[in-house]
């Protein structure tokens, strides 16, 4: 994405996610999944 691209709407989240709350939930879910995968990796490797 170029820095010379047209200005985005001042406070709109990415259209595919609809609301900012959904973006935040996505991030929390990603964190939970990573911790889960890391825990499984720790258990498997030890």
């Amino acid at each position: 994405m170029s820095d010379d691209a047209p200005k985005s709407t001042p406070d709109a989240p990415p259209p595919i996610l609809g609301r900012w709350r959904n973006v935040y939930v996505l991030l929390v879910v990603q964190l939970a999944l990573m911790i889960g995968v890391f825990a499984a990796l720790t258990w498997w490797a030890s």
Partner: protein
Amino acid sequence: MGIVRTLDWVVLVGTILTIVAYGAWRTRGTRDIEGYLKGGSSLTWPTIGLSVMATQASAITFLSTPGQAYEDGMRFVQFYFGLPLAMIVISAIFIPLYYRQKVFTAYEFLETRFDVKVRCLGALLFLVQRGLAAGITIYAPAIILSSILGWSLSGTILGIGIVVIVYTVTGGTKMVSQTQKHQMVVMMSGMIVAAIVIAHDLSDTVSLPHAVKVAGALGRMNVIDASFDLDNRYNLWSGLTGGFFLALSYFGTDQSQVQRYLTGRSVTESRLGLLFNGMFKIPMQFLILFIGVLVFVFYVFVKPPVFFNQPTIEAVRETSHAARLAEVESRFDDAFDARRSAALAYVAALERGGEEGAKAALTAAGEDVARVRAEAKALVAEAIPSAETKDADYVFISFVLGYLPVGLVGLLVAVILSAAMSSTASELNALGSTTTIDLYRRLFKRDASDAHALAASKLFTMMWGCVALAFASFASLLDNLIEAVNILGSIFYGTVLGLFLVAFLVKRVTATPVFAAAVVAQGVVVTLFFTSSLGFLWYNVVGCGVVVIVSLLLQPILGARDTTAPPR
């Protein structure tokens, strides 16, 4: 030492100069204070996100982190678990407020909420800790690169420092962000290529899954530690809570980060840039630590030196302890051979089943190697009392120089220098901005024109660059470089975060109680640092908590003195 060959030099110098030249071309013509300090509020989220990540990823990240995994395993990744949560809070609460107030610096906001003394206190705490950290940011890679590559230490410090000072002073915030975007791409490309090459080299001896199992048997795959222990620096709970407060303070109130996302063309761009960081920071740190684990497994099968800081070990050979060193090295060779045989037996057992006995033998052999290495470190300390006995910071660079192909060595040295320059540039940029906006223009020259403020900002940025160079020139190697920076940050961040949390969330507290509470909190944290064994991540929680609680307690006593209007 002719370790860096001609092709490496071409890659190294070409990479660094191309990035700086491109950044200068993209940001030519910045002539006003808005453009200089906020990049003309024109940047989009990919640039902001990469710039935020590059600011945090210093050379220490790439030198120290793989070495930390080599010594201590993967558990350091838990330190970053609170970061995505902090990105959410900053995105939802901090960014809209900063945009509404149209501030140049985070501390400007404190005056709109409290008064000028609270703003100056926040700015001063930032200047003290970031001014010191900027010196470490330059010094840390310089001491290691100069030692390993045979470069002059003062020449390396000056080389890194002068390039950064020139482009930061001339181009300002937009130049910093533009160069960081490309520096970050170089850093991640270099590390991914390094990971692939190491995994490929290992594949002659052991498959990747078996390499991970070997690392696990030797205690290096401790990614998650769910035990609750306040003295344990890195576990799931300290990462989620202490890491959350540290990230909230660092990204939400440290001007070197706030300045990165205030360059956004809208609230949306700034939010997306920070959330990009929240999404990719943990995978990035995992990759860097995992490279350290792969290097560890590589050295399970290929004999490593007993001590990675080769110039120091060579110095020990010149002392009366040379015979004892030879004896320790001989025992290290035996311990290494035993561990290598045990590892091969474990890998064979993994393929045919019944691996428990082989695993126990490998773990015991690993403990023997660790014991002899500890003896070697003790011998170094005895032979040269002033020597640094922790060699973790030398592990990765030694491996790069010894085993990676020509050209890639140059790229990885470019990664380390790019990281040093990107984080130093943000620091100098923020130190210059804060000195100009929060102190000079606020306290001494309120009627300064934009042109005057722009000139002052360039002058202060250069001054801080010189301070960082002076500090780097006189610093001595600290215990672990990345920890040193994080500990230094944690001593101050909790208090600053407390100021901002009270500003955002506790509406009835006014200026004088929160100012007094911040002074008390800073005293408590400094006392804890000198007198307790509390893990440093908890300083953030303590500092922040003391500010919030003491300001609430003092409000009925001191609040009546404040004449400032109650918060909006």
